[in-house]
């Protein structure tokens, strides 16, 4: 089940919230509320994932027990061993479910062996990348003594909380520990939650899904039919699609958490306004960036071991970041690409005191991100290369009118044009203007928010229904 489905919005969510509110109003015991949340979260996860629920339950029990052992142990060496055991086990689980097939396929390809039976690869459990990283962070933080004691029920609630279960953000235990012990649901939280959820739903359904209707057919085209216009249209649309899709989903998660009494960390901060790729990664999927920084980059030495080692660390971190996004070489190279750009930026900055800034920096960052997203979206290197070829070399073919170049016009419908304008507006609208408006006109801000959220909720849920519609036109021969 995903948040942007009719079943969730009009089935699961109102039912779960009603029970939760009634319990919060009449019972008020945090244990009961946590227990209810666990119940709903498991039901939410089981719906669609089935038996994979066993893996997450195992993960909860295993990591909580290790956490208890770490807390109980007085020897640093023992604690280290327990953490190492936990990290290896968690990585082993994710490796088995997510990467085994990838590595076996790569192995057989590089050593020219017959391909492995695809049936040996298990189905990928939903959200495993997220809750595995959360589990690792819990163990490491426990080792670092960065958070207080928590009961099994609190930990179960933390790891399985349905707002972050499927697509993050990657929340650390310390960020939720206070809310797990005591939380209050008031009008402000409900309001913030409703606003964030509506905005997220609007981003996902009205912007991202609309853009996907252009992106998907172009990426499905035979590569020979790609033209400059089509390739750029698909690339730019996908650049906006992935942002509004992911940040929309995160907004919904944050909104749901608010309504349940939790506060999740932000995950996006207008990433396409970044003036460099280094800044981009401080604004894009921030919870992952923080995780990689704290649990990978710093342990590798960060920037404390000289320039060469720093650059190498960056490459390692981003290569693994690519691999985290998907078990495919295109993701690995995507990560490597970002790592390489960051290395170049760092060298230019440190050695030559050159750093992109202003509009040029924003445009350059957007361009580089777009190139990266083509790699990210492509199903193979051949497809990615065809896209790059069409985007960068076939200028002479550009035409709006001739066939097959005229196909560009098929995609440029008014809905897409408006969607692109809105996507660009919400991506590049200067943050300082928004802050200025919000700080000076509190009532106006709330009024605009209320109207916007109501409209978005109405339009987005109607749009979800419209997507299920198969019109009847008998004349279609």
């Amino acid at each position, binding site marked *: 089940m995903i948040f942007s489905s009719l079943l969730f*919005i009009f089935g699961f969510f109102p039912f779960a919230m009603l029970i939760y509110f009634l319990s919060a109003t009449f019972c008020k015991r945090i244990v009961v509320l946590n227990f209810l949340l666990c119940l709903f979260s498991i039901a939410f996860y089981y719906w669609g994932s089935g038996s994979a629920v066993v893996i997450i339950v195992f993960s909860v029990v295993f990591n909580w027990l290790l956490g208890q052992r770490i807390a109980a142990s007085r020897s640093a060496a023992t604690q280290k061993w327990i953490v190492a055991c936990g990290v290896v086990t968690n990585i082993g689980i994710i490796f088995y479910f997510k990467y085994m097939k990838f590595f076996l396929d790569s192995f057989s390809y590089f050593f020219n062996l017959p391909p492995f039976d695809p049936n040996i690869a298990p189905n990928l459990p939903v959200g495993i990348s997220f809750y595995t990283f959360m589990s690792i962070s819990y163990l490491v933080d426990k080792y670092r003594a960065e958070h207080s004691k928590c009961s099994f029920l609190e930990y179960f609630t933390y790891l399985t909380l349905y707002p972050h279960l499927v697509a993050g953000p990657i929340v650390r235990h310390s960020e939720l520990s206070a809310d797990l012990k005591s939380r209050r649901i008031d009008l402000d939280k409900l309001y913030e939650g*409703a606003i964030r959820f509506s905005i997220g739903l609007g981003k996902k359904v009205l912007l991202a899904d609309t853009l996907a209707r252009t992106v998907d057919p172009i990426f499905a085209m035979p590569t020979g039919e790609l033209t400059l216009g089509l390739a750029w249209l698909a690339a730019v649309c996908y650049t906006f699609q992935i942002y509004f899709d992911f940040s929309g989903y995160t907004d919904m998660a944050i909104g749901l958490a608010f309504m349940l009494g939790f506060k999740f960390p932000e995950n996006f901060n207008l990433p396409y306004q970044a003036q460099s790729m280094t800044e981009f990664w401080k604004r894009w999927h921030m919870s992952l960036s923080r995780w990689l920084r704290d649990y990978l980059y710093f342990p590798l030495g960060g920037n404390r071991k000289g320039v060469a080692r720093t650059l190498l660390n960056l490459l390692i971190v981003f290569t693994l970041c690519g691999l985290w996004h998907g078990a495919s070489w295109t993701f690995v190279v995507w990560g490597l690409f970002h790592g390489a750009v960051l290395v170049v930026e760092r060298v230019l900055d440190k050695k030559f005191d050159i750093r992109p800034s202003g509009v040029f920096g924003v445009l350059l960052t957007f361009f580089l991100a777009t190139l990266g997203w083509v790699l990210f979206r492509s199903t193979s290197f051949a497809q990615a290369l065809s896209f790059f070829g069409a985007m960068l070399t076939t200028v002479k073919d550009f035409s709006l009118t001739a066939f097959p170049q005229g196909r560009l016009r098929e995609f440029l419908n008014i809905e897409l044009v408006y969607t692109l304008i809105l996507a660009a507006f919400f991506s590049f609208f200067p943050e300082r203007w928004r802050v200025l408006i919000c700080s000076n006109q509190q009532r106006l801000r709330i*009024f605009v*928010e209320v109207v916007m959220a109501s409209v978005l909720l109405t339009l987005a849920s109607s749009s979800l229904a419209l997507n299920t519609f198969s019109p009847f036109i008998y004349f279609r021969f």
Partner: protein
Amino acid sequence: MNGLLKSFLVAFFFLWCALGYLQNAFHFIRIDPVTETRDRIAKPAGEMITSIFTDPLYYQKYEYYFKDSFPLRDLFIRFKSQVDYSLLNYTKEIIVGENGWLCDKKLMLQLQETDNLSDAQLDTAVTMLKALRDDLAAHSITFLVVIIPLKPSIYPEYFPERKVSRRNPTGLDRFQNMMRSSGVYYVDLLPVFMANKHESPIFFKTDMHINNLGTHFMAEAVADWIARDSSVARSQSEPLKTQEVQEFSGEESKSLPILFPVKERHAAKYVSNSIFIRKDEHHDDYIISKFETQRTDLLPGVLMFGNSFMLRYETVGFYNLFNYSSRLLDYSSFRNIDSVISKESSTAKYVVLQVYETQILFHLTSLLKNWYWSERYIGVAQSLKKE
């Protein structure tokens, strides 16, 4: 004030999310269901509480069912379509042209695909027509092809260039040229329609078909062709009596689907002094009036056939039609042309094949079965003595 605004949003938000449950309980909103190509998905068998543990795909089936049976689905679909249509002049399925003209997007794509057919592909179709022509010629029957251009071809001015791009020459132009060079007779309706399109629309604005006026012009062109070919004079036509249609909603309008359907006031001029063959909208239930042939030495003033299934009968009869459905079966394949001929009277002189422009594409690309165009659109003018 701020608290009031916040309370309003919170109340609205939760009420909105609970709408499905409330509608299920109280049925407080009534809305016309949207028309679709498929039946709505039925609720999966079994109780949810047990089935989710026994059937691994139960959740998927239930989600499909929920999407289709969600109580406010029809309202939401109509609402969003109305917003798109009213604000953006845009809908997912239909091209919204100017001045109330609509065109099915898939139809437009088919037209573009037709334009893109290669000469070799078009030649395949012409070869089949030649075979049919030769079969009929062996029985002294003249074969005539009539291809009806679709409204984006006749009224491109209502469909802006950015929405409707066509190749020049079109697939139809090239196909007719190939028929001409292959000796397959055809009636070129393009100049006929272009010459008559302005006085009153000859296509429905909200439907893909030619209206009765269009059918009339087509039939006139066919009758003229037969008259010329047979050297038989045409009878004197009485002036076409017309009747305005006040509020017509065609298939394209119904497919939008919006809260307030697009209606056209002067969509068609129904010919009140003609006889409609079509009595029922359902294709298999045509009851055909019988027309007694009084004289066989003159061509009828107007004959109409094919997709609009209309015959305007004047002073002379030329055809005694039976139940059209049984005739459809006769024409279900080119292969059983012998059966067709044996069922026609020995006086049959002309077989007219009428198809719409995009049929060229369908026939060739086998999107539909090969028999499709013959099954639906063949019309026969017979009982005409060829001197």
